[in-house]
């Protein structure tokens, strides 16, 4: 059973993510652990290397704004219809974070290379883009099976220290139900371990039926679980929750200025009161 499974608070959970960790996080629709994100800011984590799989949103925006991030590796940071992410935009303009800009399938390919224990994965496309020109890790190689010139991009493995996400359910053995969100499985296989917040604990094994089992991340890959009901708030969750639209608009309003963002952190992160 994962350490601290039963009695751990979200703040203890976040304490186990060390400064400087390379943390893989899912896109805003795939199950973001916003509860853990706020706890990370409370614990004043430093120098995170975030890997947005394949993009990120409010989670990276808050961590960047709070000064927790050294490197942001992803193919986008987007708040969708709410508009440009104010803290990210500012950090890029001022050069206060290191950017590793990729394209979605390359993030997946890098993780899959780690998952398969191979040094790289070849990937089509990308040639001739400025993303390739500026990426510190990618190389162009010749396809060894082609007789003619056939350049192809080699994407090196991305091995996160921790895959961090929110899921609906875990069972007492430490298995986690992720449904169709198989990128969470890939992330977890690729990472050294997975830290997962869940809405609830299932008292029966998630392997009890084949239907449920088909969407399970096995306990072997899971290092830590914390119960955090509605842990993706204010983001939407594929298992039911809608985005908290009013809160998102409020965030956009407050985060326009440095002081407004500090007020946001004080009010919603430091003295957290998550609506049920």
């Amino acid at each position, binding site marked *: 059973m994962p350490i601290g499974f039963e009695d751990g608070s979200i703040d203890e959970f976040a304490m186990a993510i060390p400064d400087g960790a390379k943390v893989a996080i899912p896109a805003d629709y795939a199950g973001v652990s916003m509860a853990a994100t706020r706890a990370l800011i409370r614990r004043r984590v430093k120098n995170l290397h975030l890997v947005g799989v394949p993009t990120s949103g409010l989670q990276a925006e808050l961590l960047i704004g709070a000064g927790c991030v050294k490197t942001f590796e992803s193919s986008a940071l987007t708040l969708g219809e709410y508009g440009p992410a104010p803290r990210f935009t500012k950090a890029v303009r001022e050069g206060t974070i290191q950017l590793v800009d990729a394209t979605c399938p390359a993030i997946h390919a890098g993780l899959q290379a780690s998952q398969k224990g191979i040094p790289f994965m070849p990937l089509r496309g990308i040639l001739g883009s400025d*993303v390739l020109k500026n990426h510190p890790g990618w190389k162009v190689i010749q396809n060894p099976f082609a007789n*003619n010139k056939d350049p192809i991009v080699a994407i090196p493995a991305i091995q996160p220290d921790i895959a961090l996400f929110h899921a609906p359910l875990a069972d007492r053995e430490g298995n986690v139900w992720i449904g169709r969100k198989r990128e969470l499985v890939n992330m977890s296989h690729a990472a050294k371990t997975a830290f997962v917040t869940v809405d609830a604990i299932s008292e029966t094994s998630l392997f009890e039926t084949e239907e449920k089992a088909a969407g399970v991340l096995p306990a072997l890959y899971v290092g830590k679980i914390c119960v955090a009901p509605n842990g993706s708030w204010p983001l939407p969750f594929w298992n039911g929750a809608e985005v908290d639209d009013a809160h998102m608009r409020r965030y956009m309003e407050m985060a326009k200025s440095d002081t407004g963002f500090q007020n946001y952190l004080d009010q919603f992160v430091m003295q957290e009161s998550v609506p049920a």
Partner: protein
Amino acid sequence: MTDIADDKKALICLIANLLRDCNHVAVGAASPIPGAAALLAKAAWGTPRFVNILGSVANNFFTGGGGELFDCAAQGRIDAFFLGGGQIDGQANINLMGRGDYPSSNPRWPGTFGSAYLYFLIPKVILFREEHSRRTLVEKVDFISAPGLSDNSTYRKGGPFGLLTSKAFFRFDKDKKRFRLESIHPTSSLEDILDNTGFSFDYSKEAPLTAPPDPALLELLNQEVREKVAEVYPNFAEAIFPMTSSAAHAK
């Protein structure tokens, strides 16, 4: 309000016609006009047979995780897709990264997403950007998120089909490596387009007006397809189908 709604419906009908020869069209969750067009085409002609709305739960049939879209494109199983861009240039290069010198872009936009890959692999990529101005349609993009063209040694199965804006529809001519003005929307004119386009393009002085939507197609959109659009894009549906009461489509 109604005028804007009508303009958007005209765009939906135009795009629907472009998707009629497809088997499978994928669209982003935040792309209501292309998404509505794909749903309309499916309802009107049964093609595309498959419409996949990414990021949606109910209207996304992928079961292999976030990577399946990209694998599926590489398998040749996606026939059409939509890309936008903060800047688009005359060689169909697109920039989703930001204005100015990378990496300190100002402003920075979200990033490249899957464009640097999908643009190479999906046969019919429709560039869709409603804002038609010299700010968005530029001579040369500041950053190439995805190039419109590649040399002969590059594996490339797909690329730009055309560019649709609020003023006009351009087809991309791969041999000439230029856009050609295909039709002008009724709200614009050739002069307006020349004034507001930052790149040079081919055109005929007799460039036709964009044909108005087929009434039967428009009727289908307003009746049957409206419900489907509202399921996926509730806010958008509210805006373009003003008769839709919010109660009727509350989840």
